[in-house]
Structures are given as C-alpha cells and as structure tokens.
C-alpha cells in the first residue's frame, strides 16, 4: 500500500496469522491486504475457514494464544494496531471508534448482567459519562435500534430476550460511542429468516444515519448485493478477487467467484439441479503454493502452481488469477 492511500480508514497490509496446534501450524491468513474508505461498506465473502473471521479478530485484537499475527500490519486512521504502542492505541479506540458485532447473539451477551449495565459500561468507560447520562444515552440507543419499551428492557437479563432483540442490543452497544468503523461478522446467520432482513435493514439505516464504514462478513451473496458497495472474495486465507458490487455480480473475473455465484440458488432458475463446486478447500496446514483454488478450478494450467498475479479488472477491482 502506498502512503497516498492512508486517508483510508482501515488498511490491512500483507497480514499473516497462524495457529500453532498439535496437528501442525494452521495458516489462517496468508498475506491478506485490504482497505476500507470512510462511509464505505465492504463485503467479505468466503466459505467457513477462508479466514474472514480471523481477519475480523485480528483487527479487534482478539487473536489469542494458539494464534499469532506473524507478519504484516493493520492500520486504523494511519496508525498501526500492532506492537506495544499499537496495542495501547487499540485499547483506546476499540469500542469507541472501532466496534464489532458478532455472529451468535445468543452467547454474545453476559448472561448475568442486565442489558442496561452492558450498554452503559461502554458509554461510561469510553466517554466518561456519569451513570445517569449513560442511562439516558442507553435509552436513546435502544430506541434507535428499534426496541420497544426501552425503560423496562434496561433492567432485563439477556435470557429474557429473543435472538433478534439480543442482536439489536449488541448493535446498540457497538454504536454507543458513534464509531467510525463497524465490523459485522455474519450478523444475521444465527437468526430466523424474517429477523435477518430486519437486522440487515437496521444496519443499513444506521450506516446512512451515522456515515459509518462497515465491514460486513458473510457467506450469503444476497446480503452482499443488498448492502455493500464493494466486495472482497476470500478463499483459504487469501484474497481471490475484489470489485464493486455491480461488477462482481455481472462480470466475475475469478473462476472461484464465478463458481460461487453459480452455486447460489435463484428464484427464476430453470435448471432443476443446483451447481456446486467439486472438491474441498485445501488444508491450511502446509497449504500448497500457487493458486489455492488450483485443485477445484476448471481452467487450471501449469502456471497456476505459481502464485497468481493481481490483475486489475477495473476501477477498484482486481483478481488474483493467471487467466483473467
């Protein structure tokens, strides 16, 4: 990344994350780079195990003992989040300028703390507000995320709420300090279909109202089409392709993206069988060099055994492939 791009809100540069397990070293991320501009929603798509969540955890400083960031950099507003200095910087901004929503609202709230206490502690800690002001702000937030009778909710415990409500609470906690970047890690996966749409809509509304940048991690291409400006496709810990939403759906450049699109069911599809990509992603223990999609790609040639180049495929678009 050049220095010019540093007015981007978040820059991830050649990030390598490893997990040291008994079975061997798992390479969770293998040189991932991305940028998020202000006010932008970046979608990240990939199968489970492609490294989406590892990326999110790295940004939030949640990579723990078996895991380790071995190479690369993460910069938020131009300042690194790694190293001793970066860690103390990270502690200051996480929850305040940089927030995250997790996949499973059922387990993401402290079961023995009231809703109010969990929202208020963010406000008190980061904004130094008094308990009274924090309560006032919590009420506003609950109202904002569409929770009815917020006053009585504040004194309830998580197990008294439904999954959709919990996710709304978690969103309220995340936006409590009006962050600049919100990472949403599969925010709708664990919810009922009807609730999924509501939550997604809420996130979109908030983004517009607060001019947030969002990283939306999902494996649901429909969600991406609905909410994102730009999409990045990940596979086996690497980036495969990134492009503006319209271009990715109309002209996918990478064979993996094309396969992914074809394996998504559509309403007006006449064929009676759903397409699926043969094979499975490579093991992340001793992953092969070259294109990670090699084994499953219909267009593979000998040169695909070498690391593919990043080919520019349009404005803000590129694909890691020899055959674009």
């Amino acid at each position: 990344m050049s220095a010019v791009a540093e007015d981007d809100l978040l820059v991830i540069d050649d990030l390598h994350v490893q997990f040291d397990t008994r079975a061997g070293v798992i390479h969770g991320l293998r040189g991932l780079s991305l940028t998020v501009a202000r006010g932008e929603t970046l979608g990240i798509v990939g199968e489970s195990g492609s490294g989406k969540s590892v990326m999110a955890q790295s940004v939030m400083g949640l990579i723990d003992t078996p895991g380790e960031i071995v190479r690369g950099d993460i910069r938020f507003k131009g300042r690194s989040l790694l190293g001793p200095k970066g860690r103390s910087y990270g502690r200051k901004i996480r929850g305040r300028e940089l927030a995250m929503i997790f996949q499973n609202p059922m387990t993401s709230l402290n079961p023995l703390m009231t809703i109010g206490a969990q929202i208020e502690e963010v406000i008190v800690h980061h904004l130094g507000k008094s308990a009274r002001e924090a309560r006032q702000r919590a009420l506003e937030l609950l109202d904002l995320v569409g929770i009815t009778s917020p006053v009585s909710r504040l004194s309830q415990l998580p197990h008294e709420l439904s999954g959709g409500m919990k996710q709304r609470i978690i969103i309220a906690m995340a936006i409590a300090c009006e962050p600049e970047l919100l990472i949403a890690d599969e925010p709708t996966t664990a919810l009922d279909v009807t609730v999924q749409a509501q939550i997604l809509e809420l996130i979109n509304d908030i983004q517009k109202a607060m001019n947030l940048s969002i990283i939306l991690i999902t494996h649901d291409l429909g969600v991406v089409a609905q909410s994102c400006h730009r999409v990045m496709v990940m596979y086996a810990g690497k980036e495969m392709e990134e492009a503006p939403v319209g271009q990715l759906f109309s002209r996918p450049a990478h064979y993996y993206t094309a396969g992914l699109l074809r394996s998504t069911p559509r309403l007006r599809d006449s064929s009676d069988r759903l397409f699926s990509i043969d094979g499975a992603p490579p093991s992340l223990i001793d992953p092969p060099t070259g294109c990670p999609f090699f084994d499953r790609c219909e267009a593979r040639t000998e040169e695909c055994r070498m690391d593919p180049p990043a080919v520019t495929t349009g404005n803000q678009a590129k694909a890691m492939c020899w055959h674009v």
Partner: protein
Amino acid sequence: MSLDIAAPAARRPFARTGRLLLEIWHDRSAAFGLSVIVVILFCAVFAPWVAPYDPGAQDLGARLVPPFWLERGSLAHILGTDHLGRDILSRIIHGSRASLLVAASVVLIAGTFGTIMGLWAGFRGGRTDSVIMRIVDIQVALPALLLILLVISVVGPGIATMIVVLSIANWMVYARLVRSIVLSVRQLEYIEAAEMIGCRPGRVVFSHLLPNLISPLLTLAILEFTNIILAEAALSFLGLGVQPPATSWGLDVANGKDYLFVAWWLVTFPGLCISITVIAINLLANWVRVTTDPQEREKRYARHRAGRRRQAARQPVGGQQ
C-alpha cells in the same frame, strides 16, 4: 477457525503403547509421577526382600537413632529408628502395603458398585433412577467421616472394617458420574437416530457408551485412589485404621507424634511418603485426564508452545492482551 483436529489414531497396539510412553516421557511431571508409582509398587510387592530389617524388630539399644547424615546417625539405619529401635526405612517400605491394599480394594469395590448403580439408574430411568439418586443425594449430605468414626467405634478398627466403611462412603461419586454420562450419551443425536431406526437400544448405547465412559471413569478412579490413601492415613493416624503390630504410614506418624521435640524424623518420613505417593498419582491422573480429552490436549499443546515462545524471545508482533 476450529482447532479441534484429532490426532491420527495409531492402528497397532504396540506402536500406540510406545507412543504413549514416549509422550509421558516428554511430560516431565507425568514421567516423575509414573516412576514414583512404579518404585512404590515395587516396594510394596517385594517389601520383605527390599526392606533391610523386619519392620517389627525392636532394638532397644538403638532407640531414636537419627538419619545417617546427622550426628549419631549411621548407615545401618538410613532414615533412623523409632522409639522402640525399629528401622524407619523398613517400616515405611512395609507400610506402603497397607495404603495400596486399602486404596486398591476400596476403589475396586466402590467403583464397581457405583458404576453398576449408575448404569442401572441411567438405563432404567423413571422410578429406579429417582430412588437411586435420592439415596445418593442423602448420602452425600451425611457427615460421612463422623459416621465412619461411629461405625468403627462400634465394630472395632482394622483393615477390613476400613475397606468396607470407605467403600460404602465412596460409591456415590461413581454412580453420579456414570449416570450423567449414560444420560448425555443417550441424548446424542446419532444415538436417538439409531434408536429411532430400530437398532436395539441397549447394544447401541453400550457400544457408544464405553468409549465415553472409560476416560472420565479412569480419571475419577485415580483421583479417588489418592483420596482413599489420604483417608486411610488419617484413620490410621487417629488410631481407627490399621492396628499394631501391622504397619501403616499414618500409624507411624501417630506413633512419632509424641516425640516431635526430640526426633522429628519419626513423623517426617512416613508423612513424606504419603505426600510423594499422592503427588505422583495426582500428576499421572492429570496427565491421563488431559491426554484422553482432545480439547484439553490441544490446550496443553498451546500452553506449551506459548511458554516456549515467551522463553525464546519476546517478539513485538502479536495481538495478545
């Protein structure tokens, strides 16, 4: 990212035993535990040949001789002698028999009985289950040791009494464990599915139950073994367990109690033996527990590597709190 990658299971039993021994060897504390246990077992089995003297042989001319490294001590009595001139080392070697005999018998009897009750309660369910579990609950709430004292005071102390009483007081833990495992195994989806498609429930549950049962039961039995060793020692110390002229570590500590001011070695060495034995078994139990649990095994590995990394160099990169 999921980390629960099971280690490939070895096919040949020999290779497996070899690898297990190798793994123990690499874990310093487990290796220590196993070696101590082997030594103690050897001493207990071959006590008459290992011990330099008869444990009851008195030598009133050599009373309260200190261990050999002290003034007045001699290599004739490495750990010294007691108030009747009996060789402490020989008494300790013979005393190991009482501890191991009582502990092994109690674990075997209580373990078998408790396992049967737990299986029964878990499989039959309903009335049987609630009656057995009510008995377990009530017995857990009883002042066990005081009742043991009461029974011993009425029946009279001795090794057999101790084995019976401790067995009665300890079967519940096994019953509880086994029952909870049976219940959880029966709730597994594939078991429910198997029962639904008409597999004979007994056979299905049993074939899936055994592997789930062995590791926790083994761990519990080993831990209970240490508890019984401590209980035997305590009872013998109180004069309610092993009776003279038989020997036991707890009894020896009790005998030495009146000579605290003049001969510290009388109470120190037998007690040290109890401690080392129990520590060794605990270390091995911990290793067994971790090794038979894939998740725990992964954690141990992670800790091991993390420790090494910290020792090797403090790398600035790494997003840990």
